[in-house]
């Protein structure tokens, strides 16, 4: 049987129409020679989403997948999140990867509280999202019982592509978020429902 070596001798034509979006189109606005005007919220959103500071909270195998995501092959840095911040006070994207035991719940909550607004949370993997297979007395059944979560990434563990997809979903949220959202009544209610001031 012939081996599929044809890619070496006759290169496949590039087909990336609609598959790769390199740079977002600039937000709506007026442009002229040497100036561009748009809404402040659009500029803030554009700036925020392309310079996320992730805080990895990795407790198990999803953290290993995240390490692959950070590596050269999947290159998390392409999304403007090159540098992991290991201090919650610097970071704005909390990535919870792995099983959170009930005893670790208050720790995770404290880390979340230490982050300054605006902050986003991704629950990576089945355990962080719902407790996963650990239908057990000691495991927190989803981190959304103690902190609000923006994006859930399914999988056990999710592949790096899925983690990247989750990060892109967060970027989408960040880019579209109103700059007044964090002051809104509804957001305050959400925080209060978790007992966070």
């Amino acid at each position, binding site marked *: 049987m012939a081996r599929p070596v044809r890619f070496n001798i006759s290169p496949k034509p590039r087909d990336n129409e609609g598959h790769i979006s390199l740079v977002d189109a600039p937000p709506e606005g007026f442009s002229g020679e040497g100036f561009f005007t748009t809404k402040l919220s659009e500029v803030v959103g554009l700036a925020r989403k392309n310079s996320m500071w992730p805080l990895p909270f990795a407790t198990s195998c999803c953290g290993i997948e995240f390490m692959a995501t950070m590596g050269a092959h999947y290159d998390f840095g392409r999304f403007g999140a090159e540098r992991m911040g290991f201090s919650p006070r610097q970071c704005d994207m909390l990535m919870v990867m792995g099983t959170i035991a009930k005893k670790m719940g208050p720790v995770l909550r404290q880390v979340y509280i230490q982050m300054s607004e605006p902050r986003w949370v991704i629950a990576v993997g089945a355990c962080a999202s719902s*407790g996963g297979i650990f*239908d057990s007395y000691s495991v927190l059944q*989803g981190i959304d019982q103690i902190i609000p979560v923006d994006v859930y990434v399914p999988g056990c563990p999710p592949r790096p592509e899925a983690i990247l997809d989750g990060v892109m979903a967060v970027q989408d949220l960040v880019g579209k978020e109103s700059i007044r959202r964090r002051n809104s009544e509804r957001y305050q209610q959400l925080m209060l429902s978790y007992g966070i001031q």
Partner: protein
Amino acid sequence: MGLTNERIRERLVEKFGESATGFSEPFGMLTFEVPKEMNLKLLQFLYDDPELKFRFLTDLQAVHYPDNKGRELAVVYHLHNLTDNVRIRFKIFTDIENPDVFTATRLYECANWMERETYDFFGVNFVGHPNLKRILNVEEMDYFPMRKEYPMEDQTRIDKDDEMFGRGGTI
């Protein structure tokens, strides 16, 4: 050849007579049982005896035998003689209604955390322990999770989101 299982057994019978029972050698490791009041005496003897020299407490934990009425909880001690590289194991049995066992912390500092763990999961009350409180589980827990008293899926739990698992429920 240094210390053999036969020799250890001889020494134990010499010292404790009929108290040490149930000798067996699963996978070549000498195993026996003593009454629970004698655990400290036995540990001290094994430690001090110039021939036996069991001076390292490898592990200490409990087993729950719910059908074994009056002796439901077994506390298992693993000891190691580092000179001759010989290991032994002995068990004491206690009533689950009255799970008081003397602590080994006076003899082995490392027993401190092991006994806390055993208390945490099985509720064995180590009399004389300096700091007997939960070590691995949340402090608010009011039961001993490793006892065989609970169904595999506890129907009374409210922290499980059933909708996530395709078995109904509400959000």
